[in-house]
């Protein structure tokens, strides 16, 4: 995949950061506004897609440490499931929200009615959102890179069917 024109690259470079920041905003405010882990992670992965499209896959590969993505993915998922286990460890139930309304970390109580919302509320939900966001970012980026390699192989003419035919002819 070739890099696109200079205009596209410049715009991508200036917009890309906003995409990432917006994704992080969507993730961390998931318990107050529409959005959450998946949506924010998908927005951030759009940034990776933007890099691949604008700069070409090979340059984008240098920007992203691809070998760390599976670890990221795993860490996000583990955060999620361990928080779910937390409820069971504390003797209540699996997925019990053991931080909500206790004070402390994400422990404030939200009042009912129209209000601007309190960031430090909702218990384990923001933490789970962050875990999911991490996982989705890593997962979708991996998918995008995998698809990039796939298109590369098709374009280079390494079509296995043709090879098999050649082998049969020979």
């Amino acid at each position, binding site marked *: 995949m070739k890099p696109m024109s200079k205009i596209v690259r410049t715009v991508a470079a200036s917009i890309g950061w906003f995409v990432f920041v917006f994704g992080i905003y969507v993730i961390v405010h998931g318990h107050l506004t529409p959005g959450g882990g998946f949506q924010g992670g998908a927005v951030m992965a759009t940034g990776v897609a933007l890099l691949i499209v604008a700069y070409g896959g090979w340059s984008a590969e240098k920007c992203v440490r691809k070998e760390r993505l599976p670890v990221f993915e*795993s860490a996000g998922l583990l955060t*999620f499931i361990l928080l779910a286990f937390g409820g069971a460890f504390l003797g209540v*139930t699996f997925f019990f929200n053991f931080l909500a309304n206790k004070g402390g970390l994400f422990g404030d109580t939200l009042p009912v009615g129209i209000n601007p919302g309190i960031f430090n509320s909702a218990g384990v939900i923001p933490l789970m959102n962050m875990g999911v966001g991490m996982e989705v970012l890593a997962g979708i980026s991996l998918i995008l890179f995998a698809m990039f390699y796939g298109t590369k192989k098709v374009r280079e003419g390494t079509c296995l069917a043709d090879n098999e035919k050649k082998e049969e002819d020979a």
Partner: protein
Amino acid sequence: MSWTEHAPILIIAAPLLVSFAIPLLERIDYRVRNAAAVASLVFSIWMVLIVLHKIWVSGPVVYVFGAKSAFLPLPSGFKFPVRIMFEIDHMSAFMALSGSIAATVGVIYSWAFIREKEGGLGKYYSLFLLMSVGMLGMELTGDAFNFFVFLEIASIASFGLIAYRREDPASVEASFKYMIVSTIGAIFVLVAIGFLYGRYDALNMAYIAKHMKLGIVERVAFVLLVVSLAMKAGAVPMHMWVSDAYGRAPAAVTATLVSVSQASLYGLFRVMFSMFGVTMNNHFGGWMLIIFGLLSMFIGVTMAMVQKDIKRLMAYHAISQTGYMLLGVGVGLAVLDNPVALKSYGLAAMTGGIFHIMNHAMYKGLLFLTAGAIFYRLRTFNLNEMGGLARKMKYTTIYFIIGAAAIAGLPPFNGFASKLIIYESVYKFNPLLSVVAMVVSVLTLASFVKVFHSAFLGPEISKVKNVREVPRSMVIGMGVMAVICVLFGLFPGMVVKYLAGPAAASLVNHTAYISSVIGGGM
């Protein structure tokens, strides 16, 4: 609250945790990864046994997620259950036991079967555990939408696993075909759940069952659910994906995939008995299952007769055996509103059908694993290129004989016990059905005689000269299933009394399923 009280959730949470941790465990050592995968599934079996014991002592177990108390589905002040919950009765626990054993054997077998140099093994084990989680979740959940989610988890994981050998064009093709059909089926399940939600404003299966009144919307939802789940279970004429997917997946995956399809079969029975039950026209439902069953039995076995690919042949037999389960349970459903007939033969037919589910998971898993063992050494599925393997692979041969005798219904193996129950009870309902079932059994035997003759008997062909017995983990994996086949064959009374019989009774007992969540009965 002791930790064993969390046993219902630990059944799926332990494999889920290990599945997520595998990319990290893999960095330590491949042995750690494999051992963790095996350990999590063995732990699952143990938890299933704990839950089974609890059900024996005090009836269906309910586990509510995220609530203050796990065993209170309806806290005071609530008119209907809002939280996602697991609802485990005898039938669920029976299916979960069968599924978790099959998954454990699959992972043990994979240890040697999937060679390290094939690559992507971390992903393989992650997906394998996810597939097991999806299957167990489908069997345990009491929430309709949760059922859909687990269905999709199991399906998507199995798409990846079927296409694991991606250098083989046929594997990718099989995975793609399965994916298209399965996704459409899953979307229909979702649409049906949406219909039921729009009608009853709830997703809990017991709540829906309690308020079920048969209108046009419910009819549409019923047809969508039943046909989609029958397709996922592999009923003829929607069976084409089965022979592709089973035939091309790695053998360890196929052995578990049999159980994953059976989870859909469980969903089908749950929808028919617990959700709709006697409110629908149960003669229609019963005869529908019987017709699906007859078609599956006959077309499956006749297609198997002409196959020359060993795994594809076994896949067609899997379709044919599914027919027995549909037939047995369908007869039970057809007489559900007739207590005399139900007591005299309906319940027995259902017991036979349900017993056959577990037997099928065991002997069909065993047969697929032996086919995998042959593939491991010869690198071919083609029966024409085999011969004389009995001289070289004695364990595999013995296991194959046990599996083939069990699937053909030869005494004293487990297949005979369940098939005998089905024949004799179905005979009282309609003799013709019983005759067809017996003819199919004869054809099954004929077909496996062919496999045995081509692969194991005969002179030692040149290709087989250097073949050795398969590695130890594969022998152990096959051994576990073979031992279960023999034990269930020798002690069918125990299985029927403690596992299959109560499972059939719990399917019939529509009110107990509802009252364990809603309380107070109808």
